[in-house]
């Protein structure tokens, strides 16, 4: 895990009893956690309420949130977080408190992080009907079955539709491609 120098400075401040008081420390951690859990209204007032060193508090709040997020991103366990914090500043009580808070909220943070990202849309449903095309115009008879397929895709909570029509051969080709893909992914599991 890597954190910027600014953030590490902020962490040394928050771990130092002489700079941040115990009350303030707990308040900052609580605020950070509750912000990650997304109920921001009350937090704003806490931030405003807090105390004599508003600049420091603001900065330190950001640093704590940064630390928690980065630790969750790297999937650190309690021990490694402790080691990291001990490198920054040694205050057993606060380090313990911080890592305890982290462990209690790790899965929550990670599931929050999982929700964020850019990915191709997923196919979630499929709808189809079959037409039988008898004639192309008055002169030419065609007599070919036509599949109309509608794929429902989902990206970032928005559901979209992809529609296309194809002949039997094309559909078969698509199905073979899909089967190939499945086979390939099954093959990947047998490493």
């Amino acid at each position, binding site marked *: 895990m890597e954190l910027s120098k600014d953030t590490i400075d902020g962490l040394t401040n928050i771990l130092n009893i002489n700079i941040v008081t115990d009350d303030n420390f707990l308040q900052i951690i609580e605020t950070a956690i509750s912000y990650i859990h997304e109920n921001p209204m009350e*937090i704003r007032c806490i931030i405003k309420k807090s105390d004599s060193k508003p600049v420091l508090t*603001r900065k330190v709040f950001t640093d704590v949130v940064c630390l928690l997020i980065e630790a969750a991103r790297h999937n650190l366990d309690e021990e490694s977080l402790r080691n990291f914090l001990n490198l920054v500043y040694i205050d057993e009580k606060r380090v313990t408190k911080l890592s305890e808070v982290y462990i209690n909220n790790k899965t929550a943070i990670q599931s929050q992080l999982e929700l964020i990202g850019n990915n191709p849309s997923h196919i979630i449903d499929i709808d189809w009907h079959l037409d039988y095309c008898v004639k192309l115009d008055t002169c030419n008879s065609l007599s070919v079955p036509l599949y109309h397929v509608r794929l429902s895709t989902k990206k970032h909570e928005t559901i979209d539709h992809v529609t296309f029509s194809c002949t039997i051969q094309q559909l078969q080709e698509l199905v073979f491609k899909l089967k190939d893909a499945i086979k390939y992914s099954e093959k*990947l599991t047998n*490493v």
Partner: protein
Amino acid sequence: MFVPFTHGQVRFVQFNLSVIRYYNCTVERFRIFTFLRMMEEVDNIIIHSLRQIGCDIGENITNLSGFNTNTELVVEATVKCLDIIKPGLGLSTVLPVNMAARFRLGATLAQACSELGYKGDIGYQTFLYSSEGDLRKVFMFLIEKLPKESDKPLSEPVSNVALLEKSIATAIAQSLAAPWLPHYCHTKGFRNRGRARIPYKFVNLEIPKMESKEEYQDYCIHYMQSVPEQVQNEPSFLPSLISYNARALHSHSMSILDQINWLNKQYCDKMTEANMPGDVNVLNRDSTKNTTLPSTQPQIKDNGTRETKIVDQKILDKMEKQDLQIEKIKVECDSLRNDMEKLQDVIKNLTTSVTQVTTNYQNEEKELTINEEQKKIKARIYDLFQDGEENIKKLEAAIETTTSKLINLGNQWEKHRVPLIQKYRQEREKHSTKASASQKKLDDIKLLKEKERELQEECRNKDQQYSQLVIEVQKLPKEVNRSAYTQRILEIINNIRKQRDEINKVLVDTREIQKEINTLTGRLERSFTVADELIFRDARTNEASRKAYKLLATLHSDCSELVNLVEETGATIREIRDLEEQIDSEATKNVGANLERITADLKQMKQETAELTAQLQNKTS
């Protein structure tokens, strides 16, 4: 004019036929050669695998034809294979002497093989009166059925790539194993992985810095929005923070001064790198200086000595005077030292006397105090003497009070003492229990330490073993492994491909030659008819041409006869080859030897049955 031409054509046809025959021969030879090569390879693989599973196959046996005459070996190999494939059959690897038991063993082996899924024709004769081809088929089947090395648990992959692949495999397997659920159920956990709900959008956060000017601080306190407020769109809070950290980690300062400093630093680094050899030069220079310095000093000294020679005499006089003075001073010093020693002795004596005197004084003082006390007591006694009775009473009363007081105090002391003693005992017990516990713990620790030492030793031993084994593995010949086989198989495939190409080439050639033959025969026919007509026309008038016509006719018929003969010989040669092949295939089954063995076995059986009937008759009679 036509005769030599047709004759040449006939020769050409003959030549072509011989070419075809040659080609046919080569194709045949290729086929047989590749067949033999492949059989050899297959036999090698079979024998190698049998040796690996522990069959005692002699070094001189290199292919399966060596098995033919050795029924024991065949049975042993089959039983071992079956044992490994399907443990628990309980067949003996030794061929029994009794003929009936032998047949039973052969039948059970055949049954086991067909149970495993062998599709070919199999019976006791396959093992007892074996032919090479059948045996090869059976062993190929059995060896394919042998449990492969890949089935055994492999050692854990160590490299990062392997670990990554493994984690990918587990992730994919997990998601493949999960049952389907509608999309609105994908909210949490691994199902949701890769299905982000919130796009990664971030806001450039402004974070207050600690060490800056007053105005900035003022701005920070009064006007700067707090971080949560800076992010208007609430879901982009986490992305903003991640980007903030990343930016802070990887950013380069944009101000010109910083960039110039950075450039200067780079330049300095380069310069120092370039100077590295220069420093060495400087050092060398220093060392050369050091070496040159001593060489100059002697020169100076030389100069000095020249000057001193001039004023030698004066200095000598002075030296004598100084010597005298030194001797005087030495004598004085000696006397002074003697004085000092004497004085020190005196001081010592005086200090000892002082200590004596002080001890005396102390003793006297003690005596004085004792005497004074005695004097006080005596004065008191004299006072009391004046009215003795009363005083005695008073004294007795005082004594009584003191004794009662003493008893009281004793009782009180007892009262205090008992609980204290109890407490003390309790504490001591506690202490002893504690001590024993700690002793136990100490023992435990000692045991643990010993165990640890043992384990460490074991670990070291194991490590050593491991390294030894690794060395052994490196020493082991590596041709035994699968890659050698695959390489061989690839080689064989290449050979086959080459041979197929050659066969194709030969086929194309034969086809071309056939075509050529056809065209030539056509041309021959045509030229013959033309020649026939021309000569026939002349034949009525000209005697010579009539003769020529007759000759032409005979020539033509003779040539066609010749061609027919050549073709027939070709056909017979082919037939001969087929027959030879059939003979070979029959010979491989070595029917004759097997028949002999069967007749021998039959004789033995008859003998055994005769013996048994004789025994029966004996018993009945």
